[in-house]
């Protein structure tokens, strides 16, 4: 038997099929419940299926061509862009500042770190509930606080009007997403050798110069990971908006994810809804590929 000879001559290796026995359970589940459904969505996006009936027609790219003239898609794309920029930039900057502060001589670091990271582990729906409750126009703590400090004029129905709703939903998202960059930056800061700072001090560099010439360059890998993961994450936004505003008031907080959901499950336009999901997925994959490649390359 060929396999036996191979095994005998190279005892340090398993059989040729052995790796696949280890890999298959995960791969079957992954392909069956992620890859295959994602690919079959490509097919559904080319049909006029309503999501219920047994029959549907192939309509080619009609669903995709319809999108630019759908005013809600235009709003959703705009909201997705605003959401992405803000929920990446703000948590990253706050996270970095917190990490730098926590990396200094500060008392009670473990408890501070715990507090800043806590929102990141809460269920998204409960974060949405907490903030919906805080935003309550009459009994919400936010308006009460504004009245308390004499800014009565600012108190408003934050989630109930077009001009403020999207920004109001972004606040909890920032609250939730600051912890992760903070932790990563903190770990990265710990690994910068002290000698670099000592050398810079000897050379007469100010704290500010040290930050720009020693700290920031050393944090480059951390910046990369934080930005890559945030970008991938931000594009997928769904839960927070669905649970807080349901895309409203009107369509003012719709994003591609929620608009997809409404088309499929409320308006019975599964083909069109799926096409919307395909577009956002392609963008998410495109921005994610450099990160995925870096993780694959590093392995070999």
């Amino acid at each position, binding site marked *: 038997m060929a396999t036996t000879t191979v095994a005998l001559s190279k005892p*340090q290796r398993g059989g040729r099929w052995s790796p696949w026995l280890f890999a298959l359970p995960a791969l079957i*589940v992954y392909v069956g419940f992620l890859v295959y*459904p994602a690919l079959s969505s490509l097919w559904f996006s080319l049909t006029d299926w309503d999501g219920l009936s047994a029959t549907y027609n192939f309509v080619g790219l009609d669903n995709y061509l319809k999108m630019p003239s759908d005013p809600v898609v235009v709003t959703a794309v705009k909201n997705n862009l605003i959401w992405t920029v803000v929920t990446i930039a703000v948590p990253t900057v706050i996270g970095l500042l917190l990490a730098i502060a926590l990396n200094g001589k*500060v008392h009670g670091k473990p408890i501070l770190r715990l507090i800043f990271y806590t929102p990141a582990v809460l269920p998204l729906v409960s974060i949405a509930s907490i903030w919906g409750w805080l935003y309550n126009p009459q009994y919400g703590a936010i308006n009460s606080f504004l009245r308390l400090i004499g800014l009565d004029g600012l108190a408003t129905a934050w989630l109930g009007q077009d001009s403020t709703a999207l920004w109001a939903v972004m606040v909890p998202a920032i609250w939730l997403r600051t912890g992760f960059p903070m932790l990563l930056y903190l770990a990265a800061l710990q690994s910068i050798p002290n000698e670099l*700072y000592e050398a810079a001090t000897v050379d007469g560099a100010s704290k500010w110069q040290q930050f720009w010439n020693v700290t920031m360059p050393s944090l480059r890998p951390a910046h990369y*990971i934080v930005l890559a993961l945030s970008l*991938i994450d931000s594009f997928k936004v769904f839960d927070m908006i669905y649970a807080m505003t349901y895309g409203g008031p009107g369509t003012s907080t719709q994003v591609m994810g929620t608009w997809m959901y409404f088309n499929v499950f409320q308006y019975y336009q599964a083909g069109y809804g799926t096409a919307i999901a395909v577009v956002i997925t392609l963008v998410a994959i495109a921005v994610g590929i450099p990160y995925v490649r870096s993780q694959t390359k590093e392995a070999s």
Partner: protein
Amino acid sequence: MTLTAPIQVDVPLESAGPVKAPRTKRGLVMTLVLAVIALFWISPLALLVVTAVRPLADFIGNGPLSWPDQLTWSNFKDAWGIGNFATTYKNSAILALIKVPLGVLVSAMLGFALAKLRMKFRRTVMFTVFLGLTIPIYITIVPVFIMMRSAGATDSIFGLIGPYLAFGIPFEVLVLQSFFRQLPDEIIEAARVDGAGDWRVFFTMILPLSVPALVTVAILDAVATWNEFLFALILLNSDAHKTIPVGLLNFQGQFANNNTGLAAGILIAVVPILIAYTLLQRWIVGGLTAGSLKG
């Protein structure tokens, strides 16, 4: 040293950093500034707790920012019943207990094949699996819904296991294979010389040596499973089968005017995660950083 990487990353965080400031004055000022920010940061949760333990009349009479005149547990009792928490807790717990060990096991097996076995098309498999990190859940919901409906698995928490496993695998494999790769080949070679096959190496050497990484991944996976919303929203319709996130959404509507009851309900939903996180935070912290701070 590499064997315990996921925890060890965490350890230096406790110690002093590289900034050389006189410990006394500047440290105190910084501590004070951070404490104020932290207080502000945690205030939504603090308010939630305070509101949950006061009577509704007290809350309405004195406003949300006042100190309660009276304390009560009745909000929790009301919320527990109306929110159907006995059921949703049970469903979420069963789901996590089945899904998490299963997910960690199959991910560890794939991670072992990728990290330590000579596998053909290894790079292709890795790339395909890691690509899953970028794919939004909602691209799969229409086909998954159809699949589950034709299998008669909608409105059952068991129907969620497949999709949950699939979306957990990319991250778990990413972390575990990078951990396994750090384990020295020599010990595996030594076991092989003694006649151990791949399975024995996996179960008697790789898994026991990787307990820190396995625990980290399991915790993160449990949090993700506990919090998942979209699949649960779409696949479960009857109250008897809902998980905590979907149950919480319904519950919100029923408490439109009962602010204290709502606060108690949210707290009930959040407490297990908060306790677990507080107890296990050093593992989570270490796992996150070890899993992603490479390359």
